[in-house]
């Protein structure tokens, strides 16, 4: 710390409430007063890093929207970005127990389905999410022997995609993978790294794409299930709307969309139908007459 008077947001209760309302409106994420200390510290860090003097001036710039880096950093500070195998696993439970049986029923049942089931992970980052889906299907879905499933992963960042292709992971990323699965599907590379089985790597198709780019998203079609977790919160109003529209276009009518556990479509777009499953809210592309 250099000079004196280094901020210390020292938020008043009114400021905190203003901030909380703004952040909720912007991202759909809500903090309780119990998180006050955590939020204060993170806001402090944001103000300091972006070289504002006071909460008021920083907050005014944030609200005016003319510096997207401010919001990006704020979200980074206030959310956990880590990706690892079987993260938010309850959504995969939901997929296996409720979503896949329903999707199969919509498509005529396991004996009459035409074409593969298609699952998309977007953004897929370094691959943990699409590979987790593959592992859970192989280990826990009793119809995997009878039904073809295509798993696709997509991300805007070519660096993470090449790491996803190589599929070698450290202990931290694998901490939730059961020992039996690790033995069966991973090969030790030394230095605490483990590489995923070639068969699974080869079965997951990876693509580079910007979710907001309608033309680039156009080839993504007829997906039965899409995981789009913890990315829409980073976008401004119009970008998140366009991303939602593009996801809709990528889905089969009746298909299911999973967002991150703190995210909600209710701040983004009304085009999906929210559906309550035992494990939480998911979104469906409406089936309707023509759609």
């Amino acid at each position, binding site marked *: 710390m250099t000079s004196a008077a280094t901020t210390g947001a020292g938020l008043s209760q009114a400021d905190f409430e203003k901030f909380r309302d703004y952040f909720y409106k912007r991202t759909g994420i809500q903090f309780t007063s119990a998180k006050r200390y955590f939020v204060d510290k993170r806001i402090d860090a944001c103000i300091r890093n972006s070289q504002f003097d006071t909460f008021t001036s920083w907050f005014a710039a944030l609200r005016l929207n003319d510096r997207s880096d401010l919001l990006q950093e704020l979200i980074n500070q206030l959310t956990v970005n880590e990706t690892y195998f079987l993260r938010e696993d309850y959504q995969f439970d939901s997929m296996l127990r409720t979503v896949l049986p329903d999707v199969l029923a919509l498509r005529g049942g396991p004996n009459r389905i035409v074409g593969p089931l298609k699952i998309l992970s977007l953004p897929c980052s370094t691959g943990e999410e699409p590979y987790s889906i593959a592992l859970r299907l192989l280990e826990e879905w009793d119809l995997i022997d009878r039904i073809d499933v295509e798993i696709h992963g997509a991300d805007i960042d070519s660096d993470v995609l090449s790491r996803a292709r190589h599929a070698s992971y450290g202990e931290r990323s694998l901490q939730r993978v059961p020992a039996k699965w690790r033995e069966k599907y991973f090969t030790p590379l030394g230095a605490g790294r483990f590489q995923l089985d070639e068969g699974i790597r080869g079965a997951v198709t990876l693509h580079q794409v910007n979710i907001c780019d*309608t033309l680039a998203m156009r080839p993504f079609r007829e997906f039965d299930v899409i995981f789009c977790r913890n990315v829409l919160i980073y976008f401004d109003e119009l970008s998140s709307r366009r991303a939602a529209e593009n996801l809709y*276009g990528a889905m089969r009518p009746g298909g299911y969309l999973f967002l991150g556990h703190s995210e909600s479509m209710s701040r983004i777009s009304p085009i999906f139908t929210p559906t309550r499953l035992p494990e939480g809210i998911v979104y469906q592309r409406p089936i309707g007459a023509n759609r």
Partner: protein
Amino acid sequence: MGLVRRNAPPPEETAAPPTTGTLMRQLDDADPDCRREAALGLGGVAEAVPALLRRVAAETDPLVRDAVLTTLAAHDTAAVATGLGGHLASDDAGLRTAAAEALATMPVSVPAIIPGLLADPDHDVRVMTAMVLADLPHPGSQTWLAQMIAEDDHPNVVTAAIDALLPSLELEHHDLLRAAVQRFPDDPFLRFTVEAALR
């Protein structure tokens, strides 16, 4: 294994995208999905703006309308602002709120139409204008909202403007709020709101 298969061509290998001319014709297609995709496909195409504005007015399917507005709002031009501004007076609640949302994302071109909206004889239009200003990322928003609170003669417009101003309320606005209560002494909601804000 082989049970998780990649047995389809990668998406990149599918057909070429339709031309602008095709997409503009498809805006009037009988199939709502076709209209919706055409509207999204016209993102960034300036020559499509008049056709998209006509589609907003004619469209009855809310999903298609949302797609058209997502594309239109990204243009943020005077023609789009004026075109959408007219819908704030619509009898269709879905259309007027969707238009307000789109306008709130257009900080370049919306300021020019604000003075006209603030002077609109229909108080419902002025309430919708407060809704636009609540979210419009523009440094002038506060000033216009303060002006509405000070001058508008309809209590529902004043309370909508107060609600919109509250997130950025400054000490300098306190007298404005007190004066509003005195102008509408019979409005219990206005009194309650101002008391809560000043507490």
